[in-house]
């Protein structure tokens, strides 16, 4: 494929309060996942795997530090080079322009025009998937409609209230686009709109120019959602692994999914690689006393305790006599001797004192905010707890 056939816009401005405190001081996009990735690695990898060489990312003001930390110059995603670029823009700048009644899509329109691309793909970091965008483009070209919308058939519990679902005819034509409403749920499976869209760039530029006169939403995702049913749209059914991340439970379950060999392979060992920031870490050491099963480990760890059904990120130290069960440990934790952690999510840089117990339930995993030093037991059924020494 010619390199500038497609350009990409990656929107990362939606906030989900049910994910707190995991999304304190970081956008959903940089939430760690599967020991060594961040959520944004998935859409970014799908984008670069489709040979797209220019990406426009939209973030909220004040949420970009971890983004720059992670993406750096973009080298790992091949976004640093003579032909390859990425741009980061703040959503609040669109809003400011909008408040001044000026052409608020101008920065985006500039980007689209300069990309010289024929098609534009829109994605977000909320839907963890590994999608072949070239295949979606092919469908888009065949149908020659204004928009192509990607969806997946999922169980209702995988959908959140701000999502939209599609009603389709047998041959994939959209008959209805509606917000998801849990309580009036009747179908066993819904066609979840994954908020991945392919459109003609020229078409998008024209619609944005019109839209900004009519007060259309400054958020491109909203803008596109509203277009689905007003223009001729095609659909593309995604059949690979998908996790929809919108609250602590969906995050916890998606993380545990990665311990299922089939799901793990489908997401991380497909013919499209997932790229992430490279770190120079030493091999993980498992001592004589280590007892590990059905778990995942990144490099740089020292494992002397028992780990079952858990996901352990880079640089974690697990001392003797510890038990870690069905838990997600983010980078650089220190779990001291005799501690027990079950059904819990430990954010980055946590220290758990010797013998301390952190125990949640499958339905309500305990979440420990980053940089905490946990000195007392936390045995609870609440999703979020306080009472820890900072």
């Amino acid at each position, binding site marked *: 494929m010619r390199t500038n056939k497609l350009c990409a816009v990656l929107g990362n401005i939606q906030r989900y309060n049910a994910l707190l405190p995991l999304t304190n001081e970081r956008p959903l996009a940089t939430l760690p996942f599967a020991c060594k990735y961040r959520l944004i690695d998935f859409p970014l990898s799908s984008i670069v795997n489709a040979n797209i060489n220019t990406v426009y990312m939209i973030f909220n003001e004040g949420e970009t530090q971890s983004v720059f930390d992670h993406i750096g110059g973009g080298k790992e995603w091949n976004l640093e080079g003579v032909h390859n670029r990425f741009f980061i823009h703040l959503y609040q700048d669109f809003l400011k322009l909008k408040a001044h009644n000026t052409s608020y899509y101008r920065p985006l329109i500039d980007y689209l025009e300069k990309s010289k691309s024929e098609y534009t793909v829109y994605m977000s970091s909320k839907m963890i998937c590994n999608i072949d965008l070239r295949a979606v483009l092919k469908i888009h070209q065949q149908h020659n409609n204004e928009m192509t919308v990607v969806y997946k058939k999922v169980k209702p519990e995988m959908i959140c209230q701000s999502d939209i679902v599609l009603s389709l005819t047998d041959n994939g034509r959209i008959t209805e686009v509606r917000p998801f409403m849990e309580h009036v749920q009747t179908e066993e499976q819904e066609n979840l709109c994954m908020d991945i869209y392919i459109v003609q760039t020229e078409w998008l530029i024209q619609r944005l120019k019109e839209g900004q006169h009519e007060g259309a939403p400054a958020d491109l995702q909203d803008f596109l959602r509203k277009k689905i049913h007003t223009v001729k749209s095609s659909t593309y059914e995604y059949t690979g692994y998908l996790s929809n991340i919108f609250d602590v439970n969906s995050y916890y379950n998606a993380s545990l999914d990665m311990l299922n060999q089939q799901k*793990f392979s489908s997401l991380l060992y497909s013919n499209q690689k997932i790229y992430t920031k490279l*770190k*120079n870490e030493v091999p993980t050491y*498992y001592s004589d006393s*280590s007892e590990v*099963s059905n*778990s995942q480990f*990144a490099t740089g760890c020292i494992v002397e305790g028992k780990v079952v059904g858990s996901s352990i990120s880079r640089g974690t130290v697990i001392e003797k006599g510890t038990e870690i069960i069905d838990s997600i440990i983010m980078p650089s934790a220190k779990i001291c001797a005799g501690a027990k952690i079950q059904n819990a999510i430990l954010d980055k840089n946590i220290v758990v004192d010797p013998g301390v117990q952190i125990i949640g339930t499958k339905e309500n995993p305990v979440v420990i905010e980053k940089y905490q030093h946990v000195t007392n037991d936390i045995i609870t059924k609440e999703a979020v707890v306080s009472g820890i020494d900072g």
Partner: protein
Amino acid sequence: MKNEMLAMILAGGKGSRLGKLTKNIAKPAVPFGGRYRIIDFTLSNCANSGIKNVGVVTQYQPLALNNHVDNGTSWGLDGINSGVTILQPYAGSDGGKWFEGTAHAIYQNIAYIDEMNPEYLLVLSGDHIYKMDYEEMLETHKENDASLTVAVLEVPEKEASRFGIMNTDENDRIIEFEEKPENPKSNLASMGIYIFDWNRLRNVLLNSYSKDDHMLDFGKHVIPAYLESGENVFVYRFNGYWKDVGTIDSLWEANMEFIDPNMNLDIRDKSWRVYSKNTISPPNFLTDTASVTDSLIVDGCYVAGHIKNSILSNDVQVKEGTKITESFIMPGASIGKNVTIHRAIIGEDAVVGDNTVIDGTEEVGVVGYSEVIGVTMDED
């Protein structure tokens, strides 16, 4: 440090004592310790010592090595004032020339060194496992006002006859050099690490090649010549972990020593990191049938078997019922079901079929790169 010292890593040797393991790749490119190649230790030493420019002299089977070293970016040696240059034999107007020895390789690359115009030249070999601050060695060199400083290591007396031995006076000045002496007078073994005043060495080499007594080798020719002509030649005493991994046994042994997180190479020291070219692989996955003790495991591994006192490098697969003990498995190897591997080195991308037994109790077992063993072909 203003580019005052240029490092030249002599990475062209064949390493024939490693047998199958250097059949298609140069010794410095042989995998080590799970996620490294042997040359990483030397390159990381350069980067950590503040050396900005490094020439890597390659010759024998350089493909994997060149690919690994690339432009030095993995070691942070690709900045605006720094760089790694791969130096391969080339044909000039007077014909092509292979490097015939360590000193000859430097002589052949005078044009490159002149371009870098260093005050001091650090000559290294790319096949040792160690951590060393070359800047400290340079300080010693300057304090002694030496024209050549040779890094030495104290070796056990009974092993001294396997090394090039430096006999020194009470000021650490070298007064005699003996290559593999039968009756060693000291236990200071040369590590093959030299700091030269570049101008002096340049003149010595040019002078020798303008006549017939070509100085091919540092140990055989250059050092004796320096001593004979009364140059100031000193030792720099090194006392950390150092391992020559030139044989199957020593490579296996070095890997086994590498497992212990408390070994004195201390690879977990964040102030002196060992860098390598990073590849992207998912986290390592240990199934509910796995057991792993006293072992190192790296990204991309899938483990369903029992691993003890071993190293699994990137992307190694070990199926159910398999037992691996005291072994070093190189990247990408695939080990089938119910396999037993004891005291062995399994090469990159090797395939070991179900029920195979590799027992290295007598002599360390070796499976070569991409070698397929114990697999029955049912298809045809």
